[in-house]
Every structure is written in structure tokens, then in C-alpha cells.
């Protein structure tokens, strides 16, 4: 069976160094802003977490603050579209470029259909928070370390 390609047998070596260590562990989703304003579409209190494993594996998930009801046992096409809207769920591996100040999420699975491109994010650590900024956007995704 195919496995998550991380660790000694994986395609890349585990992240190392002091910056990598700051990523390791779980972070709780605080929010996303665009041009300094809250990103619309996820309701008042969206929840989520991102996890960086020391081995180089990562996983991210953000759920909008709303539940999509389902009439039957399986979602209809319209129910599925509503459930998928603004939901982030992907995982894979990550690499850090300290010089560029970026972390790249090499996605191996994502609930959103389409090509599994890499996500490159500028990172900044502020106190117990991690700010990720998709390169070339005015978007900021804020995470807070689990306590």
C-alpha cells in the first residue's frame, strides 16, 4: 500500500535546525485576514489545526463555523458542494527555506479537488503565534501554539 512519504524511507530528509524546531508540534487556528480584514466565508468562529511532525510530515485542517445538514445517508451534490466550501483539509510533507523565510507544504492529499500543487508560505513567529502568508497575496493565516 502507498504510504505517506516521510521519514528515512521518504523522498526528503527531515527538517533540521532551530527554525524547524519552532514549527514542530500542533497549532490552533486563530483566523485568516485579507488586506487586514477577516476573511469572509467561514462564519464567526471557524476552527482548525495544523501539525508539523519532526519527521517532515504535516497536516492542516480548517472547518467553517457552520454545519451542513444531510437529508439522506450520502451527501447530495449540492450538500457536498456546501460542505466543501471554505473547508481546508490537506496533508503531506513540508520543507523550510530559512533564507527565503518560507515553509512549503508539499501536499499528498487534499479534500479539495484539483491538482496537488505545493503551497509556499512566508512564515513569522510572534510570541506563541505563527503567521503564514501565502506568497504573492495579502492574506495572513494566524495560528497559536497548543498549550
Amino acid at each position, binding site marked *: 500500500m*502507498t504510504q505517506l512519504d516521510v521519514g528515512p524511507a521518504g523522498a526528503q530528509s527531515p527538517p533540521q535546525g532551530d527554525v524547524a524546531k519552532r514549527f514542530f508540534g500542533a497549532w490552533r487556528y486563530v483566523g485568516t485576514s485579507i488586506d487586514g480584514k477577516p476573511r469572509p466565508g467561514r462564519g464567526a468562529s471557524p476552527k482548525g489545526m495544523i501539525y508539523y511532525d519532526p519527521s517532515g510530515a504535516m*497536516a492542516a485542517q480548517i472547518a467553517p463555523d457552520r454545519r*451542513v445538514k444531510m437529508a439522506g445517508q450520502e*451527501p447530495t*451534490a449540492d450538500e457536498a458542494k456546501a460542505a466543501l466550501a471554505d473547508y481546508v483539509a490537506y496533508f503531506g510533507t513540508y520543507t523550510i527555506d530559512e533564507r527565503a523565510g518560507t515553509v512549503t507544504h508539499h501536499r499528498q*492529499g487534499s*479534500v479539495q*479537488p*484539483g491538482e496537488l500543487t505545493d503551497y509556499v508560505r512566508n512564515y513569522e513567529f510572534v510570541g506563541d503565534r505563527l503567521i503564514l502568508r501565502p506568497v504573492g497575496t495579502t492574506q495572513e493565516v494566524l495560528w497559536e501554539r497548543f498549550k
Partner: protein
Amino acid sequence: VSEQTNSGAAGRFVGAWRYVGAMVDGKPPRPGRKGIIYYDPGGDMVVQVAPDDARGKAGSRPTPEEAQAALADYVAYFGTYSVDERARTVTHHRYGSVQPGDVADLVRGYEFSGDRLILRPPGTTYEVVWERIK
């Protein structure tokens, strides 16, 4: 998170596990799936399992039919967890899931075998095998 779960058997859950596969009646129903589950020492958990077939979309946003195909067999939820050592079960108290419908608790029988964790939905012949990420 109010309950501290990182003691005893609960402590063995803590960390990240890679999806190895699932078995129904001892046979793998769907090969090639990938996934990861993480149990935080503070009592949070998050899981994702993705089918291995590519799910495309024609435009920038998925159509309802593309969304329906994308959700099929995709597991993505998170929440907290609690361990009942006597019953040998772990319960995932979900507060977010990509699948529409109720976010009911999911109870799983658990077994640790070497560096593997096996989760079994009670009353089924289904088992999901995880391997500790090293």
C-alpha cells in the same frame, strides 16, 4: 480542552501515526489510500485519510458533482479524544468534519501491536491500521 489524557494507555496514543490500511473481514477494501492521525498530549486529535484517485475540477471552483466526488471516501475531522482503558476504547469527540451531517462521537476499540495502532469500530469487522511516524 478540560481533560488531560496523556497518562497510562492514553499516553501511548500521543503523537503522529501514518495510515497503513484498512481491512474488512480481513481483506483490504480500498488500497492506495494515504493518511495521518495525530493525538496531541493536551487531548486534541485530528485525522485525514485520502483516496488515491485524483479528483479533478474543470473550473476554479468545484461544481456540485465535482464536490460530491471529492468528498467520497475522504475522511477529515478533528476534535478531542478520550480513552477508556477498561473498555479499551478511544472516543473521537468531533467538532469539525468535512462530511456533512452530524458530528457524532466516534468510538473505536484500540490495540497496540509493536509500532502499530489498530482501531476497530465496535460491532464491525472493520479495522484501520496505523504506524507510528518516526
